[in-house]
């Protein structure tokens, strides 16, 4: 009898728990599905979420000279950072409305896919695999880079002469993969590091013969090379560029409206440069006759019939958003010069990153 009662109690409990489990799972099916939708990004979901939140979650690097680093006041600064601010200005009207999320190379796509960040601007190379398998959508390239090799002056004159050498490289990057491809037939030892400081110590100590990275990074490091170690003259960057590294902002697959917004934020900075609009003169065009500038800045346009209208491409942004971006952050030339240009510690010439009219690769799509 006692036993029966115990067993009955036991059975009832199991039933209750089973019922709870079922209910729980039903509940989470629906939430997960709904969440998945919102996450994968129905069109417009990201924009709405960002505006709701009042701030942009921007995934960045905290240790790339010139592109993304933490300054003495604890603020993020750099070329990529300025593009985070540009996106925030476009969608929220405030360049300060950004929450920066520091990410390692390994974390970045997980963070993007999981919705932890809205946009990833972390010197990320656009590749087919990342486009296809990592759920990433690449916006217009902001910086054309290429992988190079830095050696001590006079030790090697080409990469093919570097048999049996040790090469220092950062881990978790396309740089590492490109190195393996370029050295497929050349015996070498890769030395991988998590960060540039550690790598530099190893390079100074002569632990590796070559240092491979994007050429912009190598140039930055070379120009700042300590005098105690012979100054910039002690190093040379080999001429060969053995990979293409188009770097630009990345958004999540599935929300094309959001991807387009980010894309156009990049484009208008270049368009502004081409049109001669910058942060100092952006408010002086009220009377300009140039319709391209009027469209870009969201000024009234009078057509042949005398009707006035403000040009709205239908991206889902307030008219005049591009003017805000240029006023608050600047055009492409300003962003470039401020962070990585010849006047900055990195001292990089424009070269590939000049506008097409100056012989470079930046060819902004028309804003009309």
């Amino acid at each position: 009898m006692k036993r029966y009662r115990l067993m009955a109690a036991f059975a009832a409990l199991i039933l209750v728990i089973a019922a709870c489990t079922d209910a729980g799972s039903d509940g989470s099916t629906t939430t997960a599905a709904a969440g998945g939708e919102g996450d994968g990004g129905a069109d417009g979901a990201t924009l709405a979420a960002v505006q709701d939140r009042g701030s942009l979650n921007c995934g960045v690097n905290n240790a790339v000279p010139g592109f993304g680093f933490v300054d003495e006041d604890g603020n993020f600064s750099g070329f990529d950072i300025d593009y985070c601010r540009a996106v925030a200005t476009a969608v929220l009207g405030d360049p300060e409305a950004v929450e920066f999320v520091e990410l390692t190379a390994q974390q970045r796509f997980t963070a993007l896919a999981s919705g932890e960040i809205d946009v990833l601007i972390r010197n990320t190379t656009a590749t087919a695999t990342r486009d296809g398998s990592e759920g990433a959508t690449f916006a217009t390239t902001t910086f054309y880079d290429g992988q190079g090799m830095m050696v001590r002056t006079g030790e090697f004159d080409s990469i093919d002469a570097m048999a049996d050498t040790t090469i220092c490289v950062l881990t978790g990057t396309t740089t590492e993969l490109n190195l393996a491809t370029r050295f497929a037939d050349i015996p070498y030892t890769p030395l991988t590091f998590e960060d540039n400081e550690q790598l530099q110590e190893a390079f100074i100590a002569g632990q590796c013969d070559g240092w491979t990275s994007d050429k912009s990074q190598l140039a930055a490091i070379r120009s700042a090379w300590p005098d105690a170690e012979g100054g910039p003259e002690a190093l040379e960057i080999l001429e060969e560029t053995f990979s293409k590294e188009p770097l630009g902002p990345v958004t999540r697959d599935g929300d094309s409206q959001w991807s387009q917004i980010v894309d156009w934020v990049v484009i208008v900075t270049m368009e502004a440069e081409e049109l001669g609009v910058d942060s100092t003169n952006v408010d002086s065009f009220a009377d300009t006759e140039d319709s391209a500038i009027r469209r870009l800045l969201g000024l009234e346009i009078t057509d042949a019939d005398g009707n006035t209208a403000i040009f709205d491409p239908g991206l889902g942004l307030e008219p005049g958003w591009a003017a805000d971006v240029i006023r608050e952050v600047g055009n492409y030339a300003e962003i470039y010069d401020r962070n990585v240009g010849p006047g900055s510690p990195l001292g990089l010439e424009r070269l590939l990153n000049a506008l097409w009219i100056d012989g470079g690769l930046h060819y902004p799509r028309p804003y009309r």
Partner: protein
Amino acid sequence: MTAGLDERLSAPGQPVPPAKRTVQWSRENLFGSWSDTLLTLVFGALIIWVTVSLARFVLDADFTIVRRNLTTFMVGRFPRDELWRPWLATGLIGVMIGVVIGSATATARDKAIEAGLPYRESTMRDALRRFWPLLALIGVALAFTRTFLPFVLTIVVFAVSALARSAGLHFPAGVRRRIWVIALALLLGAYLALSAFGGRGWDEWGGLHLNLFLTVAGILLAFPIGILFALGRRSSLPALRWVSVTYIEFVRGVPLITLLLFGAFALGFVLPADLRPGVITRMLVAITLFEAAYVAEVVRGGLQSVHPGQVEAGQALGLSPWRVTRRIVLPQALRNTIPAMVGQFISLWKDTTLVAVLGILDLLEASRVVNTQPDFLGQGLFAITLGFAGLVFWVVSYTMSREARRLERKLGVGER
């Protein structure tokens, strides 16, 4: 050891002139035999070499990078116009520490008086002797500041803590027994000072502040979970026991870094799709899960130290098993775990540096990333910033481990 003892036994009494004493001392302790002399010479050379290298490094180094980034080392990217928040929080924690120490001192005094034992109030000199490394560290940090304000504020924090201590001394016994409520309230107040009304939640904290937070919050959150697992492991119910044992042994068998990797890369996968905690929250979850297993083992050690007769006495009084655990076993067990818990605290304090591997701006990561600032880029200053971070970690951990040993001695004596 014995040589010294023999000496004392054979030659009692006579006062020896200091110079001779030095000679005699060094003969006994440094040049007792040929092998001793050899050891002395080798180790002497080693010590001189280490000292000289260290001194040369410190004297040659240019600490500009530390001076200019001191705020980043302390609080990471906390907005610079809101620095009053961390200071206020520090003040509140100072009050908490003061109140707790004050009331603990009062309790110890009352107990001693009740038992008729002599009681010696600990003096300023005792405190100096115990905490000089920490005070020296604060001095070093203040030497790197560029304005006078931190000096003033540091003195204010110390003054407030001292006031709180004397207040704690006069709390009535009833309040003192519930002192942990006040402590927790003050801790919560410190958190609110940082986060409420336009402040920053912990997902945006950084620097030393973050390491301290992860340590304290990790231990506090792990504590109740750990107690549950410890009780579960000692339970007579097989299902409870097996769940607890599996959990504890699994977590203790894997390195913390794998759990942090889990937090960084995989936790998002096992949560519902609409729940997206920030990365520091996920680190905190990983650390709590990790610590809970270790705390459980510490508590289990404490439970084992409680004599079985205590439980039987409780049962004989007709108390329920829950009451026996709650009122008799746990209070005694937890008291015995204090030194081990401090040890656990130290090891977690050291382990919080691992979040740097995942790019989180704690003190170690800050010491790394400041080297990418344009003014310091490529200057090879990593050794200096790393040295500063290392000093901070070392001093805190050294001071705590000395305190742990002191507690161990004190509690050990009390038991006998």
